[in-house]
């Protein structure tokens, strides 16, 4: 962290988006995380992505639980709506908010503890409901806020700062999400914004639940030798398999792509993701094969990254529940409220 707020003054030639805003307009308040925390880089990537998507700040909803990761929603898009929930309960809040207003962009930021330990059940059910949101896990393998105990994502054999070794197998959120039927599953690294920013943009535009598991080194408790989630280890064992370029509907695909290596995926709003297969053998559209390959690389100690699985738009939370196609605040009062007679009728059905 710094003790000074970032000065408001900015580079005069900073580019502006369609709303006339610069990146700086998407920033939040002063980060109180440790200097060098991967989470701050993810925050910067979210800022960049929201700016690039021309999202109106007031149309963004930021949700989080408890932990270092969950503090970060305060550090971006201060013009957005925010809800910092109980530990591991962010998906419930997201579900409620999403049910009431389907027209906003939902971004949940959670950590490996908040998602894979106390919040694992909520996480699984958010995927099952196919909630229309982007769920980012800032994954550092330790409980940073309580001084660095192993979390549920700590790899077997990784060493804590004081030297003890972890022997319990990790829960991998990417494999879990693929198994549970998620249609947008990615892994990335806080130190690679080139990969992360388009993933966030695609995830925000994806219809249904989008997960990005971001390896985000804990610079204070998990950046030493022997750790499998340090900056150095991640860079050494980091294997981008699929690079996803996000292309909004209004922009044409200009680059020349080699067939077989690239794969454009059209999204429900007309925007496209162009997948570049960096590993020719990897197929990000085949759920079973993707899961098998991720497991195989994991056994070899590699972090396969990129958009690891992307599926066609299935029914999302609103389709499944037959909700109105606008936000509830746009449904006329007469329609929204059954009136005392209507209420009596409804109650009658349960007598």
């Amino acid at each position, binding site marked *: *962290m710094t003790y000074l707020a970032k000065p408001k003054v900015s580079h005069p030639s900073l580019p502006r988006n369609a709303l006339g805003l610069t990146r*700086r307009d998407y920033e939040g308040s002063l980060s109180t995380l440790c200097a060098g925390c991967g989470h701050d880089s993810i925050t910067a990537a979210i800022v960049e992505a929201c700016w690039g998507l021309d999202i109106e700040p007031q149309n963004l909803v930021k949700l989080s639980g408890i932990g270092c990761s969950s503090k970060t929603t305060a550090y971006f898009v201060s013009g957005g709506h925010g809800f910092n929930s109980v530990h591991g309960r962010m998906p419930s809040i997201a579900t409620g908010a999403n049910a009431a207003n389907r027209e906003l962009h939902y971004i949940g930021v959670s950590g490996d503890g908040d998602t894979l330990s106390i919040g694992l059940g909520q996480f699984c059910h958010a995927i099952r409901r196919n909630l229309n949101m982007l769920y980012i896990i800032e994954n550092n393998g330790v409980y940073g806020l309580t001084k660095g105990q192993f979390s549920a994502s700590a790899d077997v054999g990784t060493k804590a700062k004081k030297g003890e070794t972890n022997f319990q197998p990790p829960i991998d959120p990417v494999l879990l999400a693929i198994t549970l039927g998620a249609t947008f599953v990615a892994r990335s690294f806080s130190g690679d914004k080139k990969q992360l920013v388009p993933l966030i943009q695609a995830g925000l535009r994806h219809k249904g639940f989008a997960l990005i598991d971001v390896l985000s080194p804990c610079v204070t408790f998990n950046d030493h030798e022997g750790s499998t989630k340090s900056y150095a280890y991640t860079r050494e064992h980091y294997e981008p398999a699929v690079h996803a370029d996000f292309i909004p509907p209004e922009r044409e695909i200009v680059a020349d792509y080699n067939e077989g290596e690239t794969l454009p995926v059209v999204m429900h709003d007309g925007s496209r993701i162009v997948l570049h297969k960096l590993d020719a053998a990897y197929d990000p559209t085949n759920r079973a094969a993707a899961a098998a390959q991720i497991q195989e690389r994991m056994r070899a100690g590699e972090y396969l990254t990129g958009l690891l699985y992307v599926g066609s738009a299935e029914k999302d939370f609103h389709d499944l529940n037959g909700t109105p196609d606008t936000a509830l605040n746009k449904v006329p009062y007469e329609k929204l409220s059954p009136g005392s007679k209507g209420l009596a009728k409804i109650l009658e059905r349960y007598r």
Partner: protein
Amino acid sequence: MQPTDTQHPDYFHKVVDCQWACPAHTDVPEYIRLIAQGRFTDAYMVNRHSNVFPGILGRVCDRPCEPACRRGRVEQKPVAICRLKRVAADHREADIAARLPKIPKRKNGKRVACIGAGPASLTVANDLMPLGYEVTIFEQFAEPGGLMRTNIPSFRLPPDVLNEEIQQIVRMGVDLRLNHPVTSLRALLGEGFDAVFVGSGAPKGKDLKLPGRQEAADHIHIGIAWLESVAFGHVDRIGERVLIIGVGNTAMDCCRTSLRLGAKNVKVMARKPRAFFKASAWELEDAEEESVGIVVNRAPKSFVTEQGRLTGMLFDQMEYELDDHGRIVGERVVGEEFFPADDVILAIGQENAFPWIERDLGIEFDRWDVPVVDKVTFQSTRPGVFFGGDAAFGPKNIIWAVEHGHQAAISIHRHCQGESVRDRLPPGVNLQSRKMGVHEWAYANDYAPVERRLVPHVSLKERFKKLNIEVELGFTIEQAAQEAQRCLNCDVQTVFDAKLCIECDACVDICPVDCLTITVNGSEPDLRSRLRAPAKNLSQALFVSTPLKQTGRVMVKDEDLCLHCGLCAERCPTAAWDMQKSFVHWPHAADNAAADAARNPKIA
């Protein structure tokens, strides 16, 4: 790009835009911080070390530092550097004798003659007296100061301020011979001086030979000569309607002086459009505040007389054709216009003139009849004769004259010690960390969003009552404290150690002006186009690190808009970034002497 060599003495020096732009390399940010701390005398001494005349320059410097100031690029208006300098002079302790260099009682036996008691000669004396030299200054007028006294009106530079700073030097024991014009260099050389310094300025104002010039001679004045007559009280009135020809800083002084001597209607006549004016923007502003009319696109054609008396001037009305860069590519006369006038003042430039230098002394003159002077050593083609100030390369300004004096003093010292004048101490830079604690720095690193303070002026009603009422009042201490906070502390450098970087991006993310990028190396034009914010200002360097440990990419910093807020260093988990104060070591004669003494104790 090759990794940047930050060991080169120019690299960090250039980052301090004001110091780099100052001919005398004044450590501007350092004295501004001292002002912020209320240490006015210390601030004054930092100034005096480099520019010798802080009180004078704090009022009338041409301030090349201000257009260079980074704050001007960050938010349009530069720090009021010049006016802060005046604050240091205005609020310092009266007696600084104890802080001035000690003058040795035992002289070193070398005698130096300086011609003209202007800023260049005075600086030579200031630098050489502490080394034991005996310096004699010959001055044609009854008072020292040169152009500072004769050409700068007293409503801009009060005589008290001028006298005080000149006396600081004269009191070192200078043999100042007033009313002593040098009429023959041959005769002077015959007096056995070990070195002669010519600091006689550019005293000859240009004339305008147009029809009617002879007939109206009584009411046509050469600007600098006229200002000189006013300064010495020989002239105390002028006609009601005055035309000033020319639009440089001398013209501004002439028009404002005219207003104080009885003129009611003063017009400055410019041949070209405003973009081509030579006067500094602030001097134009001050003149216009006093209701001086500035008429553009009028080329003088003739002086109009009636019965031998000036009635006005005839001008050609000009029209110019400009290209895309604003340069004039064509001009034509579209008409003519008469402007009535009782007096005309010509302020169209000045030249140096050396009728008193015999041409057979081995001092070579070029085809414009200007002496050939070495740009580094300031020595003429005759060893032992040096030139400086306007006398060397034509009219510049006081701060340049001071630097010429410093450099000439080094040469004179080396010449007198029988060493090569070319063998000079090179400049250097020292760095010193400003880290005090985790988030604590020994400077105020928070960006102060304060707008440039305006210097209060004496009211328009009051200021014309007497010639010598100083118009600018100077900042109050409170205003100075606010203005000082605007300084970005560019001398507290961002120093990067590539070995320590773990490429976590923290610095890149926090930088408020997006001047940092970690990327794959490339050629300079390529890198400039790929940074987080395009690096379009080619006059500002890119810093490129050695390859980083984890990915082999490089850290690139565009120096252009860095606020020196230190957030990169605060956010850095490994202290790969540090904030370090750069001390630019710009050697003077005393440093050269000290280095000689260290090398060869016998000389000392």
